[in-house]
């Protein structure tokens, strides 16, 4: 049994299954099996195995919030931190429901970059002023509100 953080080796069929379900995760095991010329039970077994070893982290859905009347703004927030506190700041940000992504970057300074979602600018500012600025180790914050999204696509793995 491999641990979750260890690299997992996949064979050609595993890669093909991943590619198929990335395009449409709603299709049945039989449909995937038909495309790849294998039995649905094989697809089931491979998927179960990839769930167990953490290759497939979760099954989710991409909802168009505007279609259901939820208007929101997205912002990219760059948080400059004291290096001693950066891990803690990143963890606290990860816990906030307003924050969708958190990454760390080292250029000239240690930065935390987060994607933040809010209903409007007031809500965005209130979150940053009340929940982010007071965190121990936060030195300053730069925020850019996304005004137009040109492309948004998840990485699709290539067939090996």
């Amino acid at each position, binding site marked *: 049994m491999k641990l979750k953080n260890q690299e997992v080796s996949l064979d050609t069929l595993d890669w093909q299954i991943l590619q198929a379900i990335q395009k449409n995760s709603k299709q049945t095991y039989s449909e995937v099996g038909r495309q790849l010329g294998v039995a649905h039970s094989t697809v089931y077994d491979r998927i179960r195995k990839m769930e167990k070893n953490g290759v497939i982290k979760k099954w989710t859905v991409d909802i168009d919030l505007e279609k259901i009347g939820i208007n929101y703004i997205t912002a990219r*927030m760059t948080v*400059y931190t004291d290096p001693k506190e950066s891990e803690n700041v990143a963890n606290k940000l990860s816990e906030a429901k307003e924050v969708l992504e958190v990454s760390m970057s080292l250029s000239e300074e240690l930065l935390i970059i987060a994607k933040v979602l809010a209903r409007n600018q007031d809500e965005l500012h209130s979150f940053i*002023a009340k929940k982010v*600025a*007071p965190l*121990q180790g936060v030195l300053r914050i*730069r925020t850019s*509100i996304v005004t137009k999204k040109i492309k948004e696509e998840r990485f699709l793995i290539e067939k090996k």
Partner: protein
Amino acid sequence: MTPSSSARILRTLSRKNAFYFFTSVGNYTGQRAMSLEEFANKIREVKIASLEFHLYRGDFEKWTDEVLEDNILTERISAVKLLEPVGNTLRDQLYFTVSKRLEELKSTE
């Protein structure tokens, strides 16, 4: 104004209740005030853009009213806002207003 109410207004606040200076939505300058005295000093230090941003959003009044619970200072800041000052005039008027109030409170403490 009783000594205890002056002391309450002049107290040192927690990080959560401090005033954080921004220059625009989400852009934190790194400057914060954890007491009224520190707030007065920061008015002289922070960028004018930050003072303009907060004054016209009503952030200063909100903080003096809800956190410091100083109605008198809140009213005086509202009066400054009505004059619609900008630039260094804003900085000077705001600093004069806050530092004068600070002196009053210290004298009754």
